[in-house]
């Protein structure tokens, strides 16, 4: 039972001052084992804050990040799942499932986490899942201003992952759940 937090596109301080207080109150240290960040934090203070929630932080570079040394993509294995992280501005068209699927095949991962569109989506593609946690601060994106703050918490247990989606809608935290089991799959290609 491993809890993995996935979030990104905070754009602090340029587009948003901070995480919504309701989110902040939920993110207490000690519960989460890993954090996956798609990028665009943008400053070091946010990085330090995330480190206090959980020391195991995986982060990829977004186009506005101050820190230039984050990698473009990252892969890690948790339980029986292989996770891949990428900010997503490199994949065009932005947010397009087929292009993201190519990236997923390229990284050879079961779960791909990308951002940049600031919209939460979760697609099932072949034997894997493509998740976009959205923007945790609700910062405006290049495409739209109408953004609800959201992030994702994954509970990975061997071959089963339960994805909890936390969204701030009209000032209230709404939590949804998505269940996904890894099929003993088709190692394609």
């Amino acid at each position, binding site marked *: *039972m491993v*809890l993995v937090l996935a979030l990104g596109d905070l754009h602090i301080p340029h587009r948003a001052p901070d995480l919504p207080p309701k989110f902040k*109150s*939920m*993110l*207490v240290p*000690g*519960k989460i084992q890993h954090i996956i960040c798609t990028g665009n934090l943008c400053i070091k203070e946010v990085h330090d804050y995330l480190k206090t929630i959980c020391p195991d932080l995986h982060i990829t570079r977004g186009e506005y990040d101050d820190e230039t040394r984050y990698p473009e993509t990252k892969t890690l294995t948790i339980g029986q799942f292989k996770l891949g992280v990428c900010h997503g501005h490199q994949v065009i068209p932005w947010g397009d*499932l*087929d292009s993201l*699927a190519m990236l997923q095949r390229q990284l050879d991962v079961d779960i791909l986490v990308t951002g940049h569109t600031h919209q939460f*989506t*979760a*697609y*099932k*593609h*072949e*034997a894997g*899942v493509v998740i976009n946690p959205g923007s945790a601060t609700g910062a405006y994106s290049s495409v739209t201003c109408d953004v609800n703050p959201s992030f994702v*918490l994954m*509970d990975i*247990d*061997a071959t089963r992952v*339960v994805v*909890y*989606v*936390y969204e701030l809608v009209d000032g209230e935290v*709404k*939590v*949804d*759940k*998505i*269940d*996904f*089991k890894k*099929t003993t*799959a*088709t190692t394609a290609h």
Partner: protein
Amino acid sequence: MVKKSVPDWLNSSLWSTAPPPTPPNDDDDDGRRIGKSSSSDSTAAPSNSSSSKSANTTATVVPVRPEPPPAVEIRDPLSSSNNNVENGSGTVEIRDPTGDDVSVQAQLLQELSRKIVNIGELRKLASQGIPDGAGIRCTVWKLLLGYLPTDRGLWSSELIKKRSQYKHFKEELLMNPKDWKSKCFFARQSEITRRLDKSTCIEKDESLPETGVVLPRSEITHGEHPLSLGKSSVWNQFFQDTEIIEQIVRDVKRTHPGMHFFSGESQSATSNREALKNILIVFAKLNPGIRYVQGMNEILAPLFYVFRNDPIEENAACAEADTFFCFVELLSGFRDHFCQQLDNSVVGIRATITRLSRLLKEHDEELWRHLEVTTKVNPQFYAFRWITLLLTQEFNFADSLLIWDTLLSDLEGPQETLLRICCAMLILIRRRLLAGDFTSNLKLLQHYPSTNISHLLYVANKLRTQPAR
């Protein structure tokens, strides 16, 4: 009778303890110490015991606690079969059975072998100190704590019942620590999932690898997500439990680090620590009001040690279950000391410390005045640990077992007896306390000097308000 000044018998040189270690041939005072086993204590037996015996007879008529013969370092014969306890500083001493001891032992054995054990008689015998041999202590403690009924015939059925009850508790509340998180949690989680799945939308058939399908989301009823801070949330409970378990594990590791029974990496030590941990976790879960408080491990340790060293194999194997129930019983009188909210109430620890203070004032006003008024040594600084941990930290392990014999067997009950013993501890070192200032007194009281336990218990006995039988 109102004692205005210090009574004569108290002023006798008998009761002053020896100043820091001198080689063991003191003729002037009888403060013989059953000290730590690293120093070999073989004082000249006959002369000392006869002189103190004669001094004893001049005292007032009270059942005289027989002077223990000099402590000789012997390996505990019981332990060699059960666990490799004693090496070096971890040795528990056994007193060389001499005449007096053997008679107490014989009497106890006789009492224990009756069909219906007479508790009153047992208490009287036990208060004189239970000898270490022949595995008497474990049975006597079990009887005194009410775990075993007085009727011998009922023993086996009671034991079976209680042991299976504990096993049931364990199964329900604990899981195998390796997969505790995943199993217990997964079990809860799948239960939640099942419950939620029934009430919310259908999931698509995942056997066909469909591409580009937006995964269906199901809404969660409030609180059932991992970051929930709600009190009723299963997840929140889980995280809180984990915190308590972590603290228990940490404290158990630190219990009696000098004793091989508890510390070290040997298989027996690890299994002993595991047992302590399980007992404390089960207790914390069954008592959500008080949970686990630091210090409970110290009260648990002597109980478990005694029961685990039972020469009867069957009992030693089930020591964990027996210890659990006895621990609950023992703690029932002292629970309020561990509850922070009750600190300032009539039953809390502060009230108990005030009672001790009043007891001291009643018996030895001069000392009381010197301590609390002149040198301003607040009794909380030293008595807190004495009372909450039932004196396990003030004396070495063997001595604390003897003190517990008296604590458990006294008719007045453990709370009253504990206060009398604490008072006696203060009175025994009164000379040094009266001569000291705040710093030295505090230092002395927080590191109580080794003393002759039987003297201590004798003095404590004399402090009874009602005449002893």
